[in-house]
């Protein structure tokens, strides 16, 4: 489960909004072997899949839509952010929390099982190439789509991360992130004070923004948190992107299950998002 031996595709500034299924780096269906699957903390697990196409084509912030194996009565796929991807080995990693029947069952899937995956999907993060000082804010498993983003910045970019969790044992990605983000830039918060600061992420975000200016903020986690971060970013006139979750049926833009209200009209979280400009979203 050591992440540091993996390399990640650099962020592609040309990562435009995609209408999926039209060739290029567009979503494909891959039947993927499970390399490994196990708990990292209570109710938080990591699954590693051999998914060469996704691994090669995935941009930070994109997700995969996977079919739950051996759950034939659960006919809908489940969306998960790509946490890590290694184009060379063809491996991708997902972090997931057990919140319902599908994710509970996923924990029982063992090495060697086949999983039907569609990916990579959606609009990923789009930091301005000129950004020099950036802030990533992840609440709970919201850190998952931020890891590839953290890895994508050039070394001359100062990358800060505010990482919040309920408690110390749920701070699952601290070590891998430390490859890219080190002490003074790594800000930990826990709800119970068992690690880092005893507060919500938003408190730290506010302090950081008050202390100095950032060029770009990316946030993922509970929607209330993202909304609060977006408001702070707006106050400080800082470019901010959020990553929104919606119930998804098709996951590829066809069914209109996953609408997000924006100032540009209704948008699909699956292909117009999941990453949106914070200013665009009508919260």
């Amino acid at each position, binding site marked *: 489960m050591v992440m540091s031996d993996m390399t990640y595709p650099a962020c592609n500034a040309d990562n435009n909004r995609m209408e999926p299924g039209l060739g290029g780096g567009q979503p494909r*269906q891959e039947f993927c072997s499970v390399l490994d699957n196990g708990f990292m903390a209570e109710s938080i697990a990591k699954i590693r899949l051999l998914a060469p196409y996704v691994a090669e084509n995935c941009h930070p912030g994109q997700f995969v839509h996977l*079919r739950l194996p051996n759950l034939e009565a659960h006919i809908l796929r489940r969306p998960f952010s790509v946490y890590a991807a290694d184009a060379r080995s063809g491996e991708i990693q997902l972090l997931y929390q057990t919140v319902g029947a599908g994710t509970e069952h996923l924990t029982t899937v063992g090495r060697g099982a086949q999983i039907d995956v569609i990916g990579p999907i959606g609009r990923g993060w789009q930091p301005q190439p000129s950004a020099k000082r950036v802030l990533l804010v992840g609440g709970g498993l919201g850190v998952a789509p931020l890891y590839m983003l953290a890895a994508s910045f050039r070394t001359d970019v100062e990358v800060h991360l505010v990482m919040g969790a309920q408690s110390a044992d749920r701070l699952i990605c601290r070590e891998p992130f430390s490859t890219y983000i080190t002490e003074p830039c790594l800000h930990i918060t826990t709800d119970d004070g068992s690690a880092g600061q005893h507060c919500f992420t938003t408190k730290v975000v506010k302090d950081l923004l008050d202390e100095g200016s950032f060029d770009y903020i990316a946030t993922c986690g509970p929607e209330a948190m993202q909304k609060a971060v977006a408001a702070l970013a707006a106050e400080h006139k800082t470019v901010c992107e959020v990553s929104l979750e919606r119930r998804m049926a098709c996951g590829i833009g066809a069914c209109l299950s996953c609408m997000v209200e924006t100032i540009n009209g209704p948008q699909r979280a699956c292909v117009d998002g999941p990453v949106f400009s914070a200013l665009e979203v009508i919260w």
Partner: protein
Amino acid sequence: MIDDNPAIDDTHLVDKDSLTTVDMGVNLGGLLMANPVTVGSGTFGNGKQYAGFYPLNRLGAITTKGVSGVPWAGNDNPRIAETASGMLNSIGLQNPGVESFVADELPWLATCGVPVIVNVSGHNASEYAAVIQRLETESAVSAYELNISCPNIDCGGMGFGTDPQTAYAVTQLCRKSTSRPLIVKLTPNVTDISEIACAVEAAGADAISLINTVLGMAIDVKRRRPVLARKVGGLSGPAIKPIALRMIYEVYQAVKIPLLGMGGICTASDAIEFMLAGATAVAIGTANFTDPMTAPTVVDGIREFCLEQNIPRVSELTGALL
């Protein structure tokens, strides 16, 4: 029912023991389809999203998302819920309206090399007819499917499909607006589906499609709220297949016009069940979400079944229960 299709009138030439090809063509009330498989309206966008998975001309036809005269916003989130072997949706026919459809979708659809069935929505009979009138000059349109069965809008939709008189009236008005194949899509949420089917046949429909979704509900016990913002929604997927099959079987006996069958079809075997019950063609709906390759896989599977069973023309399956 499809005797008037010359392309498939060659049984006498076929040596049953050496069947190597199957005539997959069907005639759905004047709409010639290269194979009997289309998609369920609203489950396939307007096709673009699936074009990366397979060439869309592997389908017998594309059926579009519902199109209304003016833009419709649809319902609030959440719009879907998963249920046992099924799902509920309350999308509410969100669509940008017929002008935007003509400008943004039709040109691309015209390039797909496959007939386009436009699914038509309205709040009243004249709104349906207006959409058709607007599309009459668009050569990319091959047929219309009147959705008088959507359970997810308050006014119009399913209301039209539960009353024979209203179903008759809206069909008749649309019939006057077009000579293109006119398919009317029925709701299963009725006591007697045959009565409605006979009404739309009498009003001049060329074909009937069924079933639309079954009205259903899901509740989140922890939050003590309906899962869907709209509270109720339409049930689709494998769960409803037995209901759909029964209705096809009943309507096939009640009307002479051909049927487009749908409701939970996932496999070629499912599709063949619908054809045996009386469907001339079938649509893949919710299964597109489970597996985007469902539709072409079903086409191939139907062909293989016909080869195995020495059936030279797929149209022979229609109503062919022993």
